[in-house]
Protein backbone atom coordinates (compact mmCIF):
# COMPACT_ATOMS: atom_id res chain seq x y z
CA UNK A 1 0.00 0.00 0.00
CA UNK A 2 1.53 3.29 -1.07
CA UNK A 3 1.28 6.23 1.29
CA UNK A 4 0.09 8.91 -1.13
CA UNK A 5 1.33 11.97 0.69
CA UNK A 6 4.75 10.47 1.19
CA UNK A 7 4.82 9.31 -2.41
CA UNK A 8 4.21 12.81 -3.73
CA UNK A 9 6.58 14.35 -1.22
CA UNK A 10 9.50 12.23 -2.21
CA UNK A 11 8.71 12.58 -5.90
CA UNK A 12 10.67 11.07 -8.72
CA UNK A 13 13.86 10.44 -6.80
CA UNK A 14 11.85 8.61 -4.20
CA UNK A 15 10.34 6.49 -6.91
CA UNK A 16 13.73 5.64 -8.34
CA UNK A 17 15.11 5.05 -4.89
CA UNK A 18 12.28 2.78 -3.87
CA UNK A 19 13.11 0.81 -6.99
CA UNK A 20 16.77 0.63 -6.04
CA UNK A 21 15.98 -0.52 -2.51
CA UNK A 22 13.58 -3.12 -3.83
CA UNK A 23 16.22 -4.32 -6.26
CA UNK A 24 18.73 -4.37 -3.44
CA UNK A 25 16.41 -6.62 -1.45
CA UNK A 26 16.06 -9.06 -4.31
CA UNK A 27 18.42 -12.01 -3.93
CA UNK A 28 18.56 -12.48 -7.69
CA UNK A 29 19.59 -8.89 -8.34
CA UNK A 30 22.19 -9.04 -5.57
CA UNK A 31 23.64 -12.08 -7.30
CA UNK A 32 23.89 -10.12 -10.55
CA UNK A 33 25.78 -7.37 -8.70
CA UNK A 34 27.91 -10.02 -7.03
CA UNK A 35 28.91 -11.48 -10.37
CA UNK A 36 30.73 -8.19 -11.00
CA UNK A 37 33.01 -9.05 -8.08
CA UNK A 38 34.14 -12.17 -9.96
CA UNK A 39 34.59 -10.12 -13.13
CA UNK A 40 36.63 -7.51 -11.24
CA UNK A 41 38.77 -10.12 -9.52
CA UNK A 42 39.46 -12.05 -12.73
CA UNK A 43 40.28 -8.84 -14.58
CA UNK A 44 42.62 -7.64 -11.86
CA UNK A 45 44.30 -11.03 -11.67
CA UNK A 46 44.84 -10.73 -15.44
CA UNK A 47 46.18 -7.17 -15.29
CA UNK A 48 48.13 -7.31 -12.02
CA UNK A 49 51.36 -9.33 -12.33
CA UNK A 50 51.44 -12.09 -9.73
CA UNK A 51 54.32 -10.57 -7.81
CA UNK A 52 53.65 -6.88 -8.54
CA UNK A 53 54.48 -5.07 -5.32
CA UNK A 54 52.32 -2.59 -3.50
CA UNK A 55 54.14 0.71 -3.34
CA UNK A 56 56.63 0.94 -0.50
CA UNK A 57 57.12 4.36 1.04
CA UNK A 58 59.86 6.08 3.01
CA UNK A 59 60.01 6.95 6.70
CA UNK A 60 58.96 10.52 5.87
CA UNK A 61 55.65 9.26 4.48
CA UNK A 62 54.52 7.51 7.69
CA UNK A 63 51.15 8.60 9.06
CA UNK A 64 51.80 10.66 12.20
CA UNK A 65 49.01 8.74 13.93
CA UNK A 66 47.96 5.37 12.51
CA UNK A 67 44.39 4.94 13.66
CA UNK A 68 43.17 1.50 14.61
CA UNK A 69 39.90 0.05 13.45
CA UNK A 70 37.66 -2.90 14.29
CA UNK A 71 38.56 -4.60 17.54
CA UNK A 72 40.70 -2.46 19.84
CA UNK A 73 40.85 -5.05 22.65
CA UNK A 74 39.72 -8.66 22.25
CA UNK A 75 37.43 -9.29 25.19
CA UNK A 76 38.04 -12.95 25.97
CA UNK A 77 39.60 -14.14 29.21
CA UNK A 78 42.11 -16.21 27.18
CA UNK A 79 43.36 -13.10 25.45
CA UNK A 80 43.46 -11.13 28.71
CA UNK A 81 45.60 -13.92 30.19
CA UNK A 82 47.96 -13.89 27.18
CA UNK A 83 48.26 -10.13 27.37
CA UNK A 84 49.06 -10.33 31.09
CA UNK A 85 51.82 -12.84 30.30
CA UNK A 86 53.14 -10.55 27.59
CA UNK A 87 52.23 -13.23 25.04
CA UNK A 88 55.12 -15.50 26.06
CA UNK A 89 52.91 -18.54 25.54
CA UNK A 90 51.36 -17.36 22.25
CA UNK A 91 51.82 -19.85 19.46
CA UNK A 92 50.90 -19.73 15.80
CA UNK A 93 49.30 -22.99 14.70
CA UNK A 94 49.57 -24.03 11.04
CA UNK A 95 47.33 -26.91 10.05
CA UNK A 96 44.78 -28.17 7.55
CA UNK A 97 46.11 -29.33 4.18
CA UNK A 98 49.77 -29.37 5.14
CA UNK A 99 52.20 -32.28 5.40
CA UNK A 100 53.86 -30.90 8.57
CA UNK A 101 51.43 -29.14 10.93
CA UNK A 102 53.29 -26.55 12.97
CA UNK A 103 52.88 -24.77 16.26
CA UNK A 104 55.38 -21.94 16.22
CA UNK A 105 56.16 -20.10 19.46
CA UNK A 106 55.95 -16.34 19.13
CA UNK A 107 59.56 -15.95 20.26
CA UNK A 108 60.74 -18.19 17.40
CA UNK A 109 58.74 -16.20 14.85
CA UNK A 110 60.28 -12.96 16.09
CA UNK A 111 63.81 -14.36 16.03
CA UNK A 112 63.84 -15.34 12.34
CA UNK A 113 65.23 -12.76 9.88
CA UNK A 114 62.21 -10.82 8.72
CA UNK A 115 60.89 -8.37 6.20
CA UNK A 116 60.29 -4.68 6.85
CA UNK A 117 57.90 -2.79 4.59
CA UNK A 118 56.38 0.68 4.72
CA UNK A 119 53.02 0.36 3.04
CA UNK A 120 49.66 2.04 2.80
CA UNK A 121 46.68 0.55 4.59
CA UNK A 122 43.43 1.29 2.76
CA UNK A 123 40.22 0.93 4.70
CA UNK A 124 37.03 -0.04 2.87
CA UNK A 125 35.53 3.14 4.35
CA UNK A 126 37.90 5.28 2.30
CA UNK A 127 40.72 6.39 4.61
CA UNK A 128 44.38 5.44 4.24
CA UNK A 129 47.24 5.28 6.71
CA UNK A 130 50.89 4.50 6.10
CA UNK A 131 52.73 2.25 8.52
CA UNK A 132 55.94 0.27 8.79
CA UNK A 133 55.46 -3.44 9.28
CA UNK A 134 57.94 -6.03 10.55
CA UNK A 135 57.19 -9.70 10.00
CA UNK A 136 57.83 -13.03 8.43
CA UNK A 137 56.76 -13.83 4.88
CA UNK A 138 53.73 -16.12 4.95
CA UNK A 139 55.24 -18.09 2.05
CA UNK A 140 58.12 -19.20 4.28
CA UNK A 141 55.72 -20.43 6.95
CA UNK A 142 53.66 -22.31 4.36
CA UNK A 143 56.81 -23.82 2.85
CA UNK A 144 57.95 -24.95 6.27
CA UNK A 145 54.59 -26.63 6.78
CA UNK A 146 54.76 -28.24 3.30
CA UNK A 147 51.48 -27.07 1.85
CA UNK A 148 49.48 -29.75 0.05
CA UNK A 149 48.79 -29.31 -3.65
CA UNK A 150 45.09 -29.64 -2.79
CA UNK A 151 45.14 -26.41 -0.78
CA UNK A 152 43.47 -23.45 -2.50
CA UNK A 153 42.89 -21.01 0.35
CA UNK A 154 44.63 -19.97 3.53
CA UNK A 155 42.30 -19.18 6.44
CA UNK A 156 43.38 -16.99 9.37
CA UNK A 157 41.66 -17.64 12.69
CA UNK A 158 41.81 -14.76 15.12
CA UNK A 159 41.50 -14.25 18.86
CA UNK A 160 38.96 -11.43 18.69
CA UNK A 161 35.22 -11.85 18.56
CA UNK A 162 32.34 -9.73 17.34
CA UNK A 163 29.58 -10.76 19.72
CA UNK A 164 29.94 -14.52 19.83
CA UNK A 165 31.47 -14.74 16.36
CA UNK A 166 35.22 -15.11 15.97
CA UNK A 167 36.97 -12.91 13.40
CA UNK A 168 38.52 -14.79 10.55
CA UNK A 169 39.72 -14.02 7.06
CA UNK A 170 41.00 -15.92 4.05
CA UNK A 171 43.08 -15.33 0.94
CA UNK A 172 43.97 -17.45 -2.05
CA UNK A 173 47.43 -18.73 -2.89
CA UNK A 174 48.26 -15.82 -5.20
CA UNK A 175 48.13 -13.46 -2.23
CA UNK A 176 49.40 -16.05 0.27
CA UNK A 177 52.67 -16.45 -1.66
CA UNK A 178 53.03 -12.75 -2.53
CA UNK A 179 56.37 -11.43 -1.24
CA UNK A 180 54.69 -8.64 0.76
CA UNK A 181 52.18 -10.91 2.49
CA UNK A 182 53.62 -11.22 5.97
CA UNK A 183 52.67 -12.31 9.46
CA UNK A 184 53.66 -9.10 11.22
CA UNK A 185 54.71 -8.84 14.86
CA UNK A 186 56.00 -5.28 14.76
CA UNK A 187 54.84 -1.86 13.62
CA UNK A 188 56.74 1.40 13.27
CA UNK A 189 59.80 -0.08 15.00
CA UNK A 190 57.88 -1.39 18.02
CA UNK A 191 56.13 -4.63 18.89
CA UNK A 192 52.49 -4.57 17.75
CA UNK A 193 50.18 -2.84 20.17
CA UNK A 194 46.85 -4.38 21.12
CA UNK A 195 44.69 -2.08 18.91
CA UNK A 196 46.86 -3.04 15.93
CA UNK A 197 46.60 -6.78 16.50
CA UNK A 198 49.19 -7.86 19.08
CA UNK A 199 50.96 -10.12 19.02
CA UNK A 200 50.52 -11.26 15.39
CA UNK A 201 48.59 -9.91 12.45
CA UNK A 202 48.38 -10.53 8.75
CA UNK A 203 49.38 -7.92 6.14
CA UNK A 204 47.87 -8.38 2.66
CA UNK A 205 49.09 -5.26 0.92
CA UNK A 206 47.14 -5.44 -2.34
CA UNK A 207 43.73 -5.70 -0.70
CA UNK A 208 41.63 -3.54 1.62
CA UNK A 209 42.27 -3.41 5.35
CA UNK A 210 39.65 -5.91 6.50
CA UNK A 211 41.64 -8.69 4.84
CA UNK A 212 44.64 -7.94 7.09
CA UNK A 213 43.34 -9.91 10.08
CA UNK A 214 44.61 -9.04 13.56
CA UNK A 215 45.30 -11.31 16.58
CA UNK A 216 46.13 -14.30 14.34
CA UNK A 217 46.32 -17.60 16.25
CA UNK A 218 45.89 -20.24 13.64
CA UNK A 219 46.56 -20.60 9.93
CA UNK A 220 44.54 -23.28 8.19
CA UNK A 221 45.04 -24.47 4.62
CA UNK A 222 41.79 -25.57 2.95
CA UNK A 223 40.46 -26.63 -0.41
CA UNK A 224 37.17 -24.77 -0.05
CA UNK A 225 35.79 -22.02 2.15
CA UNK A 226 32.27 -23.39 2.04
CA UNK A 227 32.29 -25.13 5.41
CA UNK A 228 34.07 -22.50 7.47
CA UNK A 229 31.68 -20.41 9.58
CA UNK A 230 29.29 -18.63 7.16
CA UNK A 231 31.10 -20.01 4.12
CA UNK A 232 31.98 -16.70 2.51
CA UNK A 233 35.60 -16.60 3.62
CA UNK A 234 35.61 -13.97 6.34
CA UNK A 235 33.76 -12.39 9.24
CA UNK A 236 32.72 -9.27 7.31
CA UNK A 237 31.98 -11.30 4.20
CA UNK A 238 29.63 -13.55 6.23
CA UNK A 239 27.99 -10.86 8.30
CA UNK A 240 27.97 -7.63 6.27
CA UNK A 241 28.22 -8.92 2.69
CA UNK A 242 31.61 -7.33 2.02
CA UNK A 243 33.38 -8.69 -1.03
CA UNK A 244 35.73 -11.60 -0.41
CA UNK A 245 38.07 -10.17 -3.04
CA UNK A 246 38.99 -6.74 -1.78
CA UNK A 247 41.56 -5.63 -4.36
CA UNK A 248 39.34 -2.66 -5.28
Amino acid at each position, binding site marked *: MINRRRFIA*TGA*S*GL*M*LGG*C*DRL*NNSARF*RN*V*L*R*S*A*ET*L*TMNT*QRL*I*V*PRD*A*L*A*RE*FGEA*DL*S*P*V*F*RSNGTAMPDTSEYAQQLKENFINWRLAVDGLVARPLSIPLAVLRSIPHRVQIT*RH*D*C*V*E*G*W*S*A*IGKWHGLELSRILDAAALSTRAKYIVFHCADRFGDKPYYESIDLVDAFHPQTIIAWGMNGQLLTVPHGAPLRLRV*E*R*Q*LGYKSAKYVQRIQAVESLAHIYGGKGGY*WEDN*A*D*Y*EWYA*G*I
Partner: protein
Amino acid sequence: MDEAVIDADPVEAQAPPPPLPRRIAYRHRLPTRIWHWLNALTVFVMLMSGLMIFNAHPHLYWGQYGANFDRPWLSFSGRPFPGWATIPSTYNLAAARRWHLAFAWLLVVPLLLFLVTSFLNRHAQRDLRPTREEVKPNHIWHDITEHARLRFPRGDAALRYNILQKFSYVGVIFVLLPLMVLTGLAMSPAMDAAWPWLIVFFQGRQSARSIHFICATLLLAFIVIHLLMVVLAGPFNEIRSMITGRFRVPPERGDA
Protein backbone atom coordinates in the same frame (compact mmCIF):
# COMPACT_ATOMS: atom_id res chain seq x y z
CA MET B 1 13.96 37.11 -14.21
CA ASP B 2 11.90 35.08 -16.64
CA GLU B 3 9.71 38.01 -17.54
CA ALA B 4 12.64 40.23 -18.29
CA VAL B 5 13.98 37.62 -20.66
CA ILE B 6 10.67 37.28 -22.47
CA ASP B 7 10.26 41.07 -22.68
CA ALA B 8 13.64 41.32 -24.27
CA ASP B 9 12.33 39.47 -27.28
CA PRO B 10 8.78 40.76 -27.84
CA VAL B 11 8.72 39.86 -31.52
CA GLU B 12 9.41 36.24 -30.73
CA ALA B 13 6.81 36.19 -27.97
CA GLN B 14 4.00 37.93 -29.84
CA ALA B 15 4.39 36.76 -33.41
CA PRO B 16 1.79 34.18 -34.52
CA PRO B 17 3.33 30.84 -35.47
CA PRO B 18 4.23 31.13 -39.15
CA PRO B 19 3.12 28.28 -41.44
CA LEU B 20 6.54 26.76 -41.92
CA PRO B 21 7.23 23.32 -43.39
CA ARG B 22 8.14 20.75 -40.78
CA ARG B 23 11.71 19.77 -41.25
CA ILE B 24 12.82 16.57 -39.55
CA ALA B 25 16.51 15.75 -39.40
CA TYR B 26 18.24 12.57 -38.29
CA ARG B 27 20.44 13.91 -35.52
CA HIS B 28 21.60 11.04 -33.28
CA ARG B 29 22.78 7.66 -34.45
CA LEU B 30 21.63 4.52 -32.65
CA PRO B 31 24.90 3.83 -30.76
CA THR B 32 24.87 7.41 -29.46
CA ARG B 33 21.29 7.05 -28.27
CA ILE B 34 21.91 3.70 -26.56
CA TRP B 35 25.04 5.08 -24.91
CA HIS B 36 23.18 8.17 -23.76
CA TRP B 37 20.38 6.30 -22.01
CA LEU B 38 22.73 3.70 -20.55
CA ASN B 39 24.81 6.55 -19.14
CA ALA B 40 21.72 8.30 -17.83
CA LEU B 41 21.06 5.19 -15.73
CA THR B 42 24.67 4.37 -14.90
CA VAL B 43 25.76 7.85 -13.88
CA PHE B 44 22.83 8.18 -11.47
CA VAL B 45 23.59 4.83 -9.88
CA MET B 46 27.28 5.75 -9.66
CA LEU B 47 26.54 9.14 -8.09
CA MET B 48 24.03 7.82 -5.57
CA SER B 49 25.99 4.73 -4.55
CA GLY B 50 29.10 6.92 -4.47
CA LEU B 51 27.44 9.27 -1.99
CA MET B 52 26.69 6.29 0.24
CA ILE B 53 30.34 5.22 0.06
CA PHE B 54 31.33 8.80 0.89
CA ASN B 55 29.01 8.67 3.92
CA ALA B 56 31.24 5.93 5.35
CA HIS B 57 34.10 8.41 5.77
CA PRO B 58 32.93 11.93 4.86
CA HIS B 59 36.38 13.55 4.95
CA LEU B 60 38.68 14.35 2.05
CA TYR B 61 42.45 14.75 2.17
CA TRP B 62 45.36 15.60 -0.12
CA GLY B 63 48.34 13.29 -0.30
CA GLN B 64 49.23 9.64 0.08
CA TYR B 65 47.45 9.05 3.40
CA GLY B 66 44.54 10.58 5.27
CA ALA B 67 42.47 9.33 8.19
CA ASN B 68 40.75 10.61 11.28
CA PHE B 69 43.82 12.16 12.92
CA ASP B 70 45.00 13.88 9.75
CA ARG B 71 43.83 17.23 8.45
CA PRO B 72 41.05 17.04 5.84
CA TRP B 73 40.34 19.84 3.37
CA LEU B 74 36.65 18.96 3.37
CA SER B 75 34.88 17.36 6.28
CA PHE B 76 31.33 16.61 7.35
CA SER B 77 30.00 15.19 10.57
CA GLY B 78 27.74 12.17 10.76
CA ARG B 79 26.45 10.78 7.49
CA PRO B 80 26.02 13.95 5.41
CA PHE B 81 24.04 12.61 2.45
CA PRO B 82 20.40 11.78 3.20
CA GLY B 83 18.63 8.58 2.19
CA TRP B 84 16.92 10.06 -0.87
CA ALA B 85 20.34 10.82 -2.39
CA THR B 86 21.98 7.45 -1.77
CA ILE B 87 21.82 3.85 -2.93
CA PRO B 88 20.70 2.05 -0.89
CA SER B 89 18.68 4.56 1.09
CA THR B 90 19.76 3.28 4.51
CA TYR B 91 23.40 3.07 5.52
CA ASN B 92 25.01 0.04 3.93
CA LEU B 93 28.57 0.40 2.70
CA ALA B 94 28.85 -3.17 1.42
CA ALA B 95 25.72 -2.87 -0.75
CA ALA B 96 26.74 0.58 -2.05
CA ARG B 97 30.12 -0.81 -3.06
CA ARG B 98 28.50 -3.72 -4.90
CA TRP B 99 26.27 -1.31 -6.87
CA HIS B 100 29.16 1.08 -7.52
CA LEU B 101 31.71 -1.50 -8.62
CA ALA B 102 29.20 -3.42 -10.77
CA PHE B 103 27.83 -0.33 -12.57
CA ALA B 104 31.38 0.93 -13.00
CA TRP B 105 31.75 -1.75 -15.67
CA LEU B 106 28.71 -0.35 -17.50
CA LEU B 107 30.32 3.06 -17.40
CA VAL B 108 33.87 2.07 -18.35
CA VAL B 109 33.39 -0.43 -21.15
CA PRO B 110 31.01 1.68 -23.30
CA LEU B 111 33.14 4.77 -22.57
CA LEU B 112 36.22 3.01 -23.94
CA LEU B 113 34.23 1.85 -26.97
CA PHE B 114 33.01 5.39 -27.57
CA LEU B 115 36.47 6.92 -27.20
CA VAL B 116 37.91 4.50 -29.74
CA THR B 117 35.07 4.51 -32.28
CA SER B 118 34.45 8.25 -32.13
CA PHE B 119 38.01 8.82 -33.28
CA LEU B 120 37.92 6.04 -35.86
CA ASN B 121 34.65 7.20 -37.44
CA ARG B 122 35.79 10.82 -37.05
CA HIS B 123 32.74 11.82 -34.97
CA ALA B 124 35.10 13.41 -32.45
CA GLN B 125 37.07 15.36 -35.04
CA ARG B 126 34.04 16.28 -37.14
CA ASP B 127 31.33 17.06 -34.59
CA LEU B 128 33.03 17.62 -31.24
CA ARG B 129 36.31 19.37 -31.98
CA PRO B 130 35.92 23.13 -31.70
CA THR B 131 36.90 24.93 -34.90
CA ARG B 132 39.44 27.75 -35.00
CA GLU B 133 36.57 30.16 -35.68
CA GLU B 134 34.52 28.93 -32.72
CA VAL B 135 37.20 29.38 -30.07
CA LYS B 136 37.64 33.09 -30.81
CA PRO B 137 36.58 35.09 -27.74
CA ASN B 138 34.03 37.07 -29.76
CA HIS B 139 32.34 33.92 -30.95
CA ILE B 140 32.29 32.36 -27.49
CA TRP B 141 30.95 35.56 -25.96
CA HIS B 142 28.27 35.74 -28.63
CA ASP B 143 27.14 32.19 -27.84
CA ILE B 144 27.10 32.95 -24.13
CA THR B 145 24.93 36.05 -24.56
CA GLU B 146 22.59 34.22 -26.94
CA HIS B 147 22.22 31.40 -24.39
CA ALA B 148 21.67 33.89 -21.59
CA ARG B 149 18.82 35.39 -23.61
CA LEU B 150 17.52 31.86 -24.23
CA ARG B 151 17.94 32.33 -27.98
CA PHE B 152 19.06 28.91 -29.08
CA PRO B 153 20.44 28.04 -32.51
CA ARG B 154 17.86 27.44 -35.21
CA GLY B 155 17.87 25.99 -38.70
CA ASP B 156 21.07 24.24 -39.77
CA ALA B 157 22.90 25.66 -36.77
CA ALA B 158 20.62 23.59 -34.50
CA LEU B 159 21.98 20.44 -36.12
CA ARG B 160 25.54 21.23 -35.14
CA TYR B 161 26.91 21.45 -31.62
CA ASN B 162 27.52 25.05 -30.64
CA ILE B 163 30.77 25.94 -28.93
CA LEU B 164 29.31 25.80 -25.41
CA GLN B 165 27.95 22.34 -26.11
CA LYS B 166 31.29 21.29 -27.56
CA PHE B 167 33.16 22.51 -24.51
CA SER B 168 30.82 20.74 -22.12
CA TYR B 169 30.62 17.46 -24.08
CA VAL B 170 34.37 17.33 -24.68
CA GLY B 171 34.95 18.23 -21.04
CA VAL B 172 32.67 15.45 -19.82
CA ILE B 173 33.63 12.73 -22.29
CA PHE B 174 37.34 13.32 -22.65
CA VAL B 175 38.25 14.85 -19.29
CA LEU B 176 35.75 14.24 -16.47
CA LEU B 177 34.75 10.64 -17.24
CA PRO B 178 38.33 9.44 -17.84
CA LEU B 179 39.37 11.22 -14.63
CA MET B 180 36.55 9.50 -12.73
CA VAL B 181 37.71 6.12 -14.01
CA LEU B 182 41.42 6.72 -13.39
CA THR B 183 40.95 8.16 -9.89
CA GLY B 184 38.60 5.26 -9.18
CA LEU B 185 41.30 2.81 -10.24
CA ALA B 186 43.89 4.74 -8.22
CA MET B 187 41.87 3.93 -5.10
CA SER B 188 42.22 0.19 -5.78
CA PRO B 189 45.22 -1.23 -3.87
CA ALA B 190 45.65 -3.99 -6.46
CA MET B 191 45.62 -1.54 -9.37
CA ASP B 192 48.19 0.62 -7.60
CA ALA B 193 50.49 -2.41 -7.54
CA ALA B 194 49.89 -3.10 -11.23
CA TRP B 195 50.03 0.50 -12.42
CA PRO B 196 52.17 2.46 -9.93
CA TRP B 197 51.96 5.53 -12.20
CA LEU B 198 48.33 6.02 -11.09
CA ILE B 199 49.45 7.09 -7.63
CA VAL B 200 52.38 9.05 -9.03
CA PHE B 201 50.11 10.91 -11.43
CA PHE B 202 47.46 11.82 -8.84
CA GLN B 203 50.03 12.41 -6.08
CA GLY B 204 48.58 9.89 -3.68
CA ARG B 205 45.52 7.74 -3.10
CA GLN B 206 43.80 10.31 -0.92
CA SER B 207 44.37 13.00 -3.57
CA ALA B 208 42.84 10.63 -6.12
CA ARG B 209 39.85 10.18 -3.80
CA SER B 210 39.46 13.96 -3.52
CA ILE B 211 39.67 14.42 -7.30
CA HIS B 212 37.13 11.59 -7.71
CA PHE B 213 34.70 13.53 -5.52
CA ILE B 214 35.38 16.88 -7.23
CA CYS B 215 34.83 15.36 -10.68
CA ALA B 216 31.61 13.73 -9.45
CA THR B 217 30.42 17.16 -8.31
CA LEU B 218 31.27 18.64 -11.71
CA LEU B 219 29.42 15.79 -13.43
CA LEU B 220 26.38 16.53 -11.30
CA ALA B 221 26.63 20.20 -12.28
CA PHE B 222 26.78 19.14 -15.93
CA ILE B 223 23.67 16.98 -15.51
CA VAL B 224 21.73 19.81 -13.87
CA ILE B 225 22.63 22.29 -16.64
CA HIS B 226 22.09 19.66 -19.32
CA LEU B 227 18.57 18.91 -18.05
CA LEU B 228 17.83 22.62 -17.72
CA MET B 229 18.89 23.20 -21.33
CA VAL B 230 16.72 20.31 -22.52
CA VAL B 231 13.71 21.86 -20.79
CA LEU B 232 14.47 25.33 -22.19
CA ALA B 233 15.19 24.12 -25.71
CA GLY B 234 11.94 22.17 -25.95
CA PRO B 235 11.89 18.93 -23.97
CA PHE B 236 9.55 16.99 -26.28
CA ASN B 237 11.63 17.53 -29.39
CA GLU B 238 14.94 17.07 -27.56
CA ILE B 239 13.95 13.88 -25.76
CA ARG B 240 12.34 12.45 -28.91
CA SER B 241 15.54 13.09 -30.82
CA MET B 242 17.49 11.12 -28.24
CA ILE B 243 14.97 8.24 -28.41
CA THR B 244 14.20 8.03 -32.13
CA GLY B 245 17.15 10.00 -33.44
CA ARG B 246 14.76 12.35 -35.28
CA PHE B 247 14.81 16.03 -34.48
CA ARG B 248 12.40 18.68 -35.67
CA VAL B 249 14.64 21.49 -36.82
CA PRO B 250 13.48 24.81 -35.36
CA PRO B 251 12.94 27.15 -38.34
CA GLU B 252 15.14 30.21 -38.77
CA ARG B 253 13.85 33.28 -36.97
CA GLY B 254 11.83 35.67 -39.07
CA ASP B 255 13.76 38.56 -37.59
CA ALA B 256 17.19 37.00 -37.93
